């Protein structure tokens, strides 16, 4: 197979180039009625031509925005391409966004035409129609349920395509002309990022942004035109746009749309992607499924699994990184490949994966190493919507689980005094749509983008992300203190559900810890420890001992890191109640509100920084039915061992 990517500086030009040079090759597949349906490159070009003609006949022209709402469906991909062909800008939406959250985007982008997947999405638009007077046309893909709709705004995708067919007859070369007018600096797409405060911001990305980034990744990984990719993540997400859209058109590989969100695992197994992208939560769900199924397996299989997974943990990742491993271990691992790793990779649909990426949030080292030890080349990447996810990527053969790797080619990174990462790259966004103030805040006069993340480079030049810059503080002696980094490390233990670290302006680091009721409950049951409920369980000395072991493991880890060895956790308490969004302690997306917690649990924090070995705490609590009550409890404060920086390796 050829590896040459098509040339062209816009997506429609790339599409036409593929259709011209290799039109009979498959471009996109969708599983429908149990069968994979295929469109070739020339088939896609035809669909796009008719749809673009249809849109043009409805008055859609250069510079206008068009909403695309739904799951991954080929027709929605055609809609994006048709929009771009006419010089318009597609705005994909998260398909599960509730209607009121869509209003702002429709108003902000002055959207007149929406192409939606089905009745569910159309209903949402009718709900917000009174607030979005500009919205004139809604076209739907799946006709189910629309039979009794009598709305003048509504028409089917088919009817639009048919209109296009007629219009294209009268304007035979309109598409080539329109595509010819496009250039690389044109806006390719607008993606809205959900801020934690205020309205979402429309990130404007140019064709150059996405195409240069795609080429950067392709070059780095040696991607080819015969890759198989599963298109299953939301179309409004930058990762999906980069890996299943921009790169699809640049490289000319094949994307596959699953039948439905529930069938992704089966469909993935059928397709066997060679190039794969998954956020940590997807990888975690897969691992949980494997673990549960193994628990149900017979004893011989269970033994084989445990034994060979032990071997894999020991040498798998090192073999993948090409490090020296003894011949005996290699043999042992190869045997495991026959009995366990191969069949398991096959079950996961990962037999053919050459490169897999994960990004979006911090991934637990156990989870990460699980996949790598099976021989799957899973790597972390780092980036934002604003940078087209092109900042850092872990290099093949040198993956360090706690870093995101060195900067990619063409990316310049500087670290500010407070540790904030600022950067310039070819993928850097143009602006926030109609929001100059926010644009100026994020991107300074010289074009440096302020990520808001804090991090530093380790000895190998790999970037390590530690926290949001605004949360990073300093201990009294000036040692760097990154609470989120410590909390994440703690939360990677199954026994710990939430953690809050304190230390800014204090002599040492301490932590409040929430146990995970299910994990610790199971653990207690297996040991015959009787308990009456959460509060009782959390106060058990054995549980404290369990948590102390976790904390000390984290400390041992930290001691190995020259920058962070000073922020080891010295004292901790195990809280008597779960931190809860209903009590205002967490945000709705389960992020800890550390300032509020510090105020609410002031006596606990006081005890952590005194020599008391217990404290009393009274906390308001909101029950499920809305009533509030007060819980009073005595909490023990325990010490954890801290390690001197050099002794760390043996202890760990």
């Amino acid at each position, binding site marked *: 197979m050829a590896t040459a990517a098509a040339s062209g500086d816009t997506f429609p030009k790339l599409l036409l180039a593929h259709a011209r040079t290799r039109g009979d090759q498959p471009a996109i597949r969708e599983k429908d*009625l*149990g069968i994979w349906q295929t469109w070739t490159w020339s088939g896609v070009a035809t669909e796009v031509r008719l749809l673009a003609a249809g849109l043009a006949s409805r008055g859609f022209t250069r510079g206008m925005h068009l909403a695309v709402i739904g799951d991954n469906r080929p027709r929605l991909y055609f809609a994006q391409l048709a929009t771009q062909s006419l010089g318009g800008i597609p705005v994909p939406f998260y398909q599960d966004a509730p209607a009121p959250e869509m209003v702002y985007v429709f108003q902000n982008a002055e959207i007149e035409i929406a192409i939606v997947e089905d009745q569910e999405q159309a209903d949402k638009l009718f709900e917000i129609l009174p607030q979005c007077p500009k919205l004139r046309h809604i076209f739907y893909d799946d006709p189910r349920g629309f*039979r009794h709709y009598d709305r003048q705004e509504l028409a089917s995708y088919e009817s639009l395509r048919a209109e296009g067919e007629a219009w294209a007859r009268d304007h035979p070369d309109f598409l080539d002309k329109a595509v010819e007018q496009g250039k690389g600096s044109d806006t390719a797409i607008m993606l809205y990022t959900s801020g934690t405060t205020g309205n979402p911001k429309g990130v404007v990305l140019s064709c150059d942004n996405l195409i240069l980034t795609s080429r950067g990744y392709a070059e780095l990984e040696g991607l080819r035109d015969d890759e198989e990719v599963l298109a299953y993540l939301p179309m409004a997400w930058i990762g999906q746009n980069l890996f299943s859209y921009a790169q699809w058109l640049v490289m000319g590989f094949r994307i596959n749309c699953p*039948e439905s969100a529930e069938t992704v695992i*089966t469909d993935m197994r059928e397709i066997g992607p060679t190039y794969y992208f998954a956020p940590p939560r997807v990888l975690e769900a897969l691992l949980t499924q494997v673990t549960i199924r193994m628990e149900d397996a017979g004893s011989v299989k269970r033994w084989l699994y445990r034994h060979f997974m032990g071997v894999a943990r020991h040498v798998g990742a090192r073999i993948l990184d090409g490090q020296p491993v003894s011949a005996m271990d290699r043999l042992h691992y190869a045997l495991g490949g026959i009995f366990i790793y191969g069949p398991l990779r096959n079950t996961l649909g990962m037999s053919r994966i050459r490169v897999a990426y994960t990004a979006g949030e911090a991934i637990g080292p156990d989870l990460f190493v699980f996949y790598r030890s099976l021989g799957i080349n899973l790597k972390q990447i780092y980036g934002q919507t604003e940078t087209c996810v092109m900042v850092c990527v872990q290099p093949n053969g040198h993956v360090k689980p706690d870093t995101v790797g060195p900067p990619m080619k063409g990316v310049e990174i500087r670290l500010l005094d407070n540790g904030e990462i600022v950067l310039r790259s070819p993928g850097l966004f143009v602006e926030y749509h109609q929001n100059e103030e926010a644009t100026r805040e994020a991107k300074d006069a010289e074009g440096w983008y302020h990520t808001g993340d804090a991090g530093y480079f380790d000895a190998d030049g790999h970037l390590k992300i530690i926290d949001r810059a605004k949360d990073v503080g300093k201990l009294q002696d000036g040692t760097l203190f990154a609470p989120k980094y410590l909390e994440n490390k703690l939360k990677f233990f199954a026994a710990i559900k939430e953690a809050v670290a304190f230390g800014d302006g204090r002599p040492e680091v301490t932590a409040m810890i929430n146990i995970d009721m299910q994990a610790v409950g199971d653990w207690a049951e297996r040991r015959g420890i009787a308990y009456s409920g959460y509060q009782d369980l959390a106060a058990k000395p054995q549980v404290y001992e369990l948590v102390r072991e976790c904390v000390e493991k984290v400390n041992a880890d930290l001691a190995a890191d020259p920058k962070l060895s000073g922020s080891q956790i010295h004292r901790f308490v195990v809280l008597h109640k779960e931190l809860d969004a209903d009590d205002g302690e967490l945000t709705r997306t389960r992020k800890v509100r550390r300032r509020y917690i510090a105020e609410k649990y002031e006596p606990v924090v006081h005890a952590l920084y005194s020599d008391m070995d217990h404290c009393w705490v009274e906390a308001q609590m909101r029950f499920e039915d809305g009533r509030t009550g007060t819980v009073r409890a005595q909490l023990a404060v325990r010490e954890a061992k801290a390690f001197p920086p050099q002794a760390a390796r043996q202890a760990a």
Partner: protein
Amino acid sequence: MTGKGRQFGEVILKVENISLAFGGVKALTDISFDVREHEIRAIIGPNGAGKSSMLNVINGVYHPQHGRVTYRGETRHAMEPHHAAAMGIARTFQSLALFKGMSVLDNLLAGRNLMIRSNIFLQALRVGPALREEVHHRKRVEEIIDFLEIQHVRKTPVGRLPYGLQKRVDLGRALAAEPKVLLLDEPMAGMNVEEKQDMCRFILDVNDEFGTTIVLIEHDMGVVMDLSDRVAVLDYGKLIGDGTPDEVRSNQAVIDAYLGVKH
């Protein structure tokens, strides 16, 4: 989205003066009502009112001692199950009628058994007409799978599915026969609220998309009143009310029987 202002066709099914007794127990006494094409018709009543017996009379499992059943213009003293099935009456069961060890796909294909024309030998060899026919049936079944949104369990043995999904498969199995009239025996029994909502949506969609006439028995009053065009109320084997949900709701005899009466 009930049938306010909906258009119905001719009477497709009529039962007249049905009486059914098991020895001394009178299950049904002199029941008459009709079902019009395309409507959703509910039969409600307290436990032991004779609802399931009524369905069993309609599709011929029970033979009433008195009365007539008229279906699509043909009047019989009693239906026979195979007649009923051949003439386009399909039903689901309160206690499910599925092959637990077979996949969802195979269960639905089994539901098309009556429509398979090629003989067993051709089928076994999978040649010529038999293969073409199988492709056709598979396509129809896939459409039902798509319609009921059960793609993710297509190849899962039915016995491994949760109860709510099994109910949906049972509905699919009945739909596979492409019935004119669909009898649903407590389609929502044992379901949680979300599953009930899903099931309601599917019943309305079946009625709407395929134009299937639906006769259903249900306990959940809310569901019945929302879903049905007309409701027949049974109590101790007697018809005590018949009409639109609003009419039935304000019928004193129904209120007394179903919702209880003050003493």
